[in-house]
């Protein structure tokens, strides 16, 4: 396992954006919570953490009980406390939001999580073994949540991760500003201590073979996420960097990450925002995000867009890249065409139409693309039915192949993919798997 880089230390350009709440801040903030009954924040949370309950426990100094309340609903509470788009979830639904300031739920959750992780307290312990084996493919948020929930129930879990480090996007794809690597790895370690066996560098389909999985385990959970950015199909694309790899380098080998002076980020989703933020923080003079539609259609959360503007990033809307200009592989600029928006397309958003004759070349010495992620091929190798490339599952997260369950970004055909949704998938799948194991003797 690589040594965890020191990029997360205080004072770094990429240090975690929000400082931890002091004990005084946490107590004061928690006392502000009205303790709503059947609280809307809890409804808005995809994992339905009993938020007033954990906040009340902070206000009474019961930090252990607070952490337990969070982890009962969401085993990756430390990650979610940092990466959740709380404005769209719990805090967005806070009844104090309309006329006051919503409760800082995310930061209070982090306070409770920091308490147990900082003191190396294990809130849960493995139950007595029920002598059943489950393979979990992919040690990202969905797989970790599923593995942890099953381990808690006494199931023997093997977690296969093809990368060198576990944690999935929490380790590789969430910028340090939001979540330091060590937070994700601490959660993995907690799930390992619950009894889940982690095998890194193991790509299912290669080693172990698919057949090993199907024969050696009572059930399988697939939480493999998605792949790299799809192809734009433009000349010179080989000189464009992949957004997730760009972020990965910023987290795991920041010293080696070369950041341009004039950086263009293609895309306007949350990953594009993160790429632009990293580029600015690591020294780019100008960072321009390029999007073929307008602010209205962009998939980044409004608060993320507001944030990146404050970081000094500009966004060029209604622009579509058509060609990379380079000299012997050294990027010089990106040629774009002007776009007009037409009727709504299949995604419900206005379809972009090129306006010929308005091409322009934006100067750039580095171009990064973050335009979504390709689907991975494991589904077809397992012969699973898909929906637009995403693995198709039923209400219990079970795929078309009985005993094989899936969750996380690889099933998220609709709605926005997020860590907390993946955690909920993993949790619900674990419950369904457990029922199946118990029912099938």
């Amino acid at each position, binding site marked *: 396992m690589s040594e965890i880089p020191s990029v997360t230390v205080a004072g770094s350009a990429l240090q975690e954006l929000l400082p931890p709440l002091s004990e005084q801040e946490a107590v*004061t903030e928690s*006392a*502000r919570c*009205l*303790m*709503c*009954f*059947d*609280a*809307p*924040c*809890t*409804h*808005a*949370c*995809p994992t*339905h953490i009993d938020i007033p309950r954990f906040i009340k426990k902070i*206000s009474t100094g019961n930090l252990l009980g607070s952490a337990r309340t969070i982890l009962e609903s969401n085993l990756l509470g430390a990650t979610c406390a940092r990466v959740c788009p709380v*404005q*769209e*979830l719990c805090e*967005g*639904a806070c*009844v*104090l939001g*309309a*006329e006051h300031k919503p409760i800082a739920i995310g930061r209070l959750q982090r306070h409770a999580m920091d308490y147990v992780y900082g003191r190396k307290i294990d809130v849960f312990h493995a139950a007595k073994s029920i002598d059943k084996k489950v393979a979990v493919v992919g040690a990202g948020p969905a797989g970790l949540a599923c593995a942890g929930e099953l381990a808690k129930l006494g199931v023997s879990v093997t977690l296969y991760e093809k990368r060198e480090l576990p944690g999935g996007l929490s380790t590789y794809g969430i910028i340090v500003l939001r979540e330091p690597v060590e937070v994700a790895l601490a959660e993995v370690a907690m799930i390992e201590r619950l009894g889940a066996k982690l095998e890194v560098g193991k790509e299912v389909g290669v080693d172990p073979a698919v057949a090993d999985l199907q024969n050696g385990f009572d059930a399988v959970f697939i939480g493999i996420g998605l792949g790299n950015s799809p192809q734009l199909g433009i000349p010179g694309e080989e000189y464009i960097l992949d957004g997730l790899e760009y972020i990965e380098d910023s987290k795991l080998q920041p010293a080696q990450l070369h950041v341009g002076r004039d950086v263009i980020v293609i895309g306007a989703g949350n990953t594009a925002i993160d790429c632009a933020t990293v580029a600015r923080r690591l020294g780019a003079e100008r960072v321009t995000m390029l999007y073929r539609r307008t602010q209205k259609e962009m998939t980044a959360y409004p608060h993320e867009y507001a944030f990146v503007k404050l970081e000094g990033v500009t966004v060029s809307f209604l622009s579509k890249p058509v060609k990379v200009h380079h000299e012997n592989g050294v990027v010089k600029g990106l040629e774009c065409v002007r776009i007009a928006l037409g009727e709504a397309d299949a995604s419900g958003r206005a379809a972009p139409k090129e306006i010929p004759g308005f091409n322009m070349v934006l100067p750039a010495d580095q171009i990064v693309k973050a335009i979504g992620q390709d689907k991975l091929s494991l589904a077809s190798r397992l012969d699973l039915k898909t929906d637009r490339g995403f693995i198709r599952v039923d*209400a219990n997260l079970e795929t078309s192949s009985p005993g094989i369950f899936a969750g996380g970004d690889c099933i998220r055909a609709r709605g926005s993919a997020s860590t907390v*949704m993946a955690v*909920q998938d993993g949790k*619900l799948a674990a419950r369904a798997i457990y029922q199946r194991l118990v029912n099938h003797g």
Partner: protein
Amino acid sequence: MADLRTNFAGIRSPNPFWLASAPPTNSGAQIHRAFEAGWGGAVWKTIGAPVLNVSNRYGSWRYGNEKMLAINNVELISDRPMEVNLREIAEIKRAWPDRAVIVSAMVESKPEAWHDVIRRIQDTGADGIELNYGCPHGMSERGMGSAVGQVPEYCQEITSWVMEVAKIPVIVKLTPNISDIVMPARAAVAAGANAISLINTVNSIMGVDLDTLDITPSIAGRGGHGGYAGPAVKPIALNMLAALGRDSVVHNSGLPISGMGGISTWRDAAEFLLLGASSLQVCTAVMHYGFRIIEDLCDGLSNWMDAKKLGTISEVVGRSLRQVSDFKDFDLSFKVVARIDQQKCIRCDLCYVACNDAAHQCIDLIDRNGQLTAPAAYNPSSNGRVEAVSTRPSVVVREDDCVGCRLCFNICPVENCIQMVEVPPDRPSVTWDELTAKQPEIAEDWDQMERYRQKMGIRIH
């Protein structure tokens, strides 16, 4: 501008606000600054028998984000030599002739001791004397303070000794640590006192330290009861104040009452005036925020009096006393119901759970289609701000079942969101006293009560 000037048993002050006998009135320097800030008077911290104090003498009760909802203390009377206090009292009175300077005193229960201290106080030029019969800790163990106040006979006897030599108004300060506050007040009247003040602090143990298991605050590992004061005691003080106002002996004596116990704002002050206090004493709020609070005490009171067209303090004093009644005189037919303003409601559902768990189960959750629904009725796969907010049910009172208990009104976090609305009574006005005078059997027999309820259409929900 309302006239805030006060004449209390002949003691004049430019406004009714006096600092209570307590740490803020420990020295001439403090009182000098208090008078500069605008305080109308000050009751000097009790002088008398020699004492020694301890550290960690104040405890506080924190509730939520309120750091000092109440304070308790085991500080004794003034630990400065009596000569020093008397000299400073004289200096302050000379420097501030228009302010009320009252001196609190407590000595051994001997006529000579009391005669001596009263004479020495009078020599300073002070405007009045307050007899501290209330201090519940330390001094009471030595037979002073509340040890006197809790026994009306002692209270009367010592007051009589004082009145033998007193040439300036004498105020008897009562302890609330007694079953009937009227008894020591009557004793003060009988002894010829000029005025009464109340309440002194309440016996209390502030808490236990959950780390050390010591009493908090810990005095070298020990702790005990101390005098409890501050915002949390205000309702207790108001009740005792009203009890004196309603007692014919005390009321007919014409003795003015100086009210205290948790006065923090002009609103508290107005309430004490309305229930019969004609001067007001403040301590805890000053210990929390300093002398500067006098500005809003006066300003707020004056503006309120102007708005109410009450020109002088005496027009305010006792005005609400006649409203204070016993249960037996309440109108049983009076009816209010809770009504929730759906525009103001933020849907915290605190009223719902309170009504459902602790009151009379008459608030319903109604979904967006107008149908009755249950808490957390949403599908577990539902999430997100938009869905959580847009599908949240409304809280609606079933007014037919509402007993008008007022619990929801009390806990609603939004100003004026829940109103207790008076509805026409469904039976003729009658009090318990009137009813049971005519039909005594219904107070004694549940079957008779049931017949009465059926006849009157009273349905108990």
